[in-house]
């Protein structure tokens, strides 16, 4: 407790002059096609996406995206998507195990159709109140630590799909 | 327009032709040029090295010299930057502020107060433009790639207006040449390596002429180009101060 008191006292003694409260950033005027922007951005970060139409079978949509071969898919619910960076917000309250978001090799995030915001400004305002843990997941796990060569599937998901469904 | 020509210390001693070209050019553009500006140096070499106390006397003299003029023109972006941004803090009296307000870099003076975005002239060569960092990011006399701005500004405008001149594209449009004042001698290996990088960029785009509004960058780049250790293409590069180029082009 001495440390806490000393640090806080030192900070207050620094007498930093007041700074104005930053103004909230206004929501983007939504003119753009957010779904299209999200899908192309997700693709640019190594992911893929599809819209599951009411008449379509979800599994078929997923396997069409994955292509032929054996798959071990983990499907997790996403709350909403962010158009500017291809991220999907996943909240730990919707999962049985937090580590699932990184343990899965092939990860499918299911997002309600139409749940897309333009930028992170709107995204952070939609974090559930009192959330205990949550993620913005943007594409599969990746690294460029060896000679700046992009490697998909560093430690977490090697494949990340986003499917919009009602 | 009546202007005073302030010749930076090292230009006076090592590149007098840049100062003469500035004088001739300004007179050709209709200015009455006074050479009565007496102080040799604005104090930048000392101030930039942290030797603030050693810079003060030179800066104070410089501000005193500027005190009797309404317009002072300098053929150096770096020195102009020092005068405008540092003299008010370095000089104890109000003359520091006056100096900061009346001092212009040559190109910004031509396109600004003289109001000439282009000069009639001809220079049929492939030219690589180097805007010194203090002119660019300090005085904002040109767009910066960091800010997603195109290559632009007074020197660029004046060069683009010359008939026959081709500005060569560069891989790195605004990277530092490595002079950096005391850096040139404090970190000589880095300084020279940076200079070589710039030269390789110019020569790989077949530039015949390297032009800059900063004679200090030229002094350094010319020295690196003339070294026997440097690729031969750089040796054919003609290095010119912008005043020399404009004076030659508008003869």
């Amino acid at each position, binding site marked *: 407790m001495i440390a806490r008191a000393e640090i806080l006292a030192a900070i207050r003694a620094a007498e930093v002059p007041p700074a104005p409260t930053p103004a909230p950033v206004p929501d983007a005027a939504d003119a753009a096609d957010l779904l299209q922007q999200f899908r192309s951005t997700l693709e640019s970060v190594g992911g893929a996406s599809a819209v599951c139409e009411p008449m379509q079978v979800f599994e078929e949509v997923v396997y069409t995206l994955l292509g032929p071969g054996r798959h071990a898919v983990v499907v997790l619910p996403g709350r909403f998507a962010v158009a500017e960076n291809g991220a999907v917000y996943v909240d730990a309250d919707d999962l049985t195990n937090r580590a699932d978001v990184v343990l899965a090799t092939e990860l499918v995030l299911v997002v309600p159709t139409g749940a897309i915001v333009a930028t992170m400004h709107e995204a952070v305002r939609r974090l559930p109140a009192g959330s205990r843990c949550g993620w913005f997941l943007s594409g599969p796990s990746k690294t460029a630590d060896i000679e700046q060569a992009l490697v998909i*599937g560093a430690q977490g998901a090697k494949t990340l799909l986003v499917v919009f469904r009602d | 327009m009546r202007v005073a020509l302030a010749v930076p210390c090292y230009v006076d001693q090592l590149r007098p032709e840049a100062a003469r070209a500035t004088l001739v050019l300004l007179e050709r553009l209709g200015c009455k040029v006074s050479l009565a500006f007496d102080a040799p140096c604005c104090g930048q070499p000392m101030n930039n090295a*942290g*030797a603030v106390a*050693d810079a003060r006397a030179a800066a104070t003299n410089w501000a005193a010299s500027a005190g009797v003029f309404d317009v002072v023109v300098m053929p150096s972006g770096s020195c102009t930057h020092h005068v405008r941004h540092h003299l008010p803090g370095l000089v104890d009296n109000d003359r520091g502020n006056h100096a900061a307000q009346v001092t212009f870099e040559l190109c910004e003076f031509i396109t600004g107060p003289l109001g000439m975005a282009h000069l009639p002239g001809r220079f049929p060569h492939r030219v690589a433009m180097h805007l010194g*960092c203090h002119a660019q990011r300090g005085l904002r006399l040109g767009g910066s790639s960091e800010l997603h701005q195109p290559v632009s500004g007074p020197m660029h405008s004046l060069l683009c207006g010359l008939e026959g001149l081709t500005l060569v594209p560069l891989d790195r449009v605004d990277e530092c040449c490595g002079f950096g004042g005391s850096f040139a001698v404090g970190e*000589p290996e880095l300084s020279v390596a940076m200079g070589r990088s710039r030269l390789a960029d110019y020569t790989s785009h077949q530039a015949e002429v390297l032009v800059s509004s900063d004679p200090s960058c030229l002094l350094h780049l010319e020295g*690196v180009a003339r070294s026997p250790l440097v690729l031969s293409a750089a040796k054919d590069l003609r290095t010119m101060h912008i005043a020399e180029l404009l004076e030659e082009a508008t003869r």
Partner: protein
Amino acid sequence: MSAGHPEAAAAFLNDSERAAWHDQALWFVRQRRDRATDLPEWEALRDRAAELKAYAMANLAGLLEAFETRATASGVTVHWARDAKEHNRIVFDLLRQRSATRVAKSKSMLTEECQLNPYLAARGIEVVDTDLGERIVQLAGEAPSHIVLPAIHWKKEEVGTLFHTHFGTPADESSPDALAAAAREHLREVLLHADAAITGANAMVAGTGGVVICTNEGNADLGMHSAPIHIVSVGIEKIVATLDDLGVLLRVLARSATGQPITAYTTHITAPRPGAEMHVVLVDNGRSARLADPEFRSALHCIRCGACLNTCPVYRRSGGHSYQYSIAGPIGAILAPAVDLDAHRALPFASTLCGSCKDVCPVRIDIPVQLLAWRGRIASANALPKGYAAIFARLGGIVADRTRFESAGRWARRALRFLPPALLAGRWNPWTRAGRELPLAPAQSFREWARREGRVE
């Protein structure tokens, strides 16, 4: 000890091919940043990011208290550490009390600053760095050379040799895909079976009591959601007030760092998972002292994106290790002197003051102004690099006086014109020793010419 930056840089440049490769690798990252930040609102975002950091610094104590209250309420234990030693002891005590011997750590420049790894190793605790780049340098017994790209100075063939030794990959294997796959096996094994997970934090949010952690590999999440205890080491300056502020921060961070719109994993965590523990160690280690110094206060705004390193022509050509401080590059050069002015007095001079760092900084830290201010402090402390003090004292006297200036100039030009080059261009002369000719001196100065022309007295 970084008194020897020029020497270290010269050594790095000795291998000119490698130096050129290093320069180009980082220039690519800079170019990726240019593309990713080419948004119409980019400059406004930088303004907003600078404002939110200024606000956080002006209200730091209250925000830290608010963070602590909220985090504590949701089951997190908050610790306070005045310095590196105290931080290391807190972490060690937590580990010892739980008999933890194998720790998985994700990227944290703060634990580098505190030298946590050697501290724990000396006490029998094995720490594995789990970011791929950090693992590479750890296996090699090195420190990271870049705050975001720790192994940017390593070539893939060298990584291949290293992994052959440690992971048994084929001796000639150098494909990044294959090497990263081998590392994946190794690191997942470490992360899923560690006794404890240590992470850094990219931000704390006072409004939620949340810690925000960004990675591309997912290693931080693998560790923190698997181990029975998660310890977050974070500097007090990493706090932001609100989620709104966090939104701004997340928009500028990855774009500036690697040219990505956001990292692959961005975790906002306010509470431990059921049955596990979470601890946050708030570290001062000189930060409150820096806060009290108006000249250098804004250095605390740094969000560790690394953009100033990538754009710096000096960093790109001298490598991170030449700075001999945990944080290299322009930002390191203004942070290190505050830690130990004498040891790091060369760093503020390892810059041409070109200003590129200031223009890429997402929180608008005026790094060149601070470099210059440090130079001034170093001069005042009589600690200027060898020779500078004498040279500039003499030069300052000469150029302040017309008569002395002209006479010195005349002698200098005569020397340049008539003395044998071998005499002037020896190893002792820093102007010439790396491959730069002396200027061709004219017979007369401009002023002498003007006098002869009758243009001046």
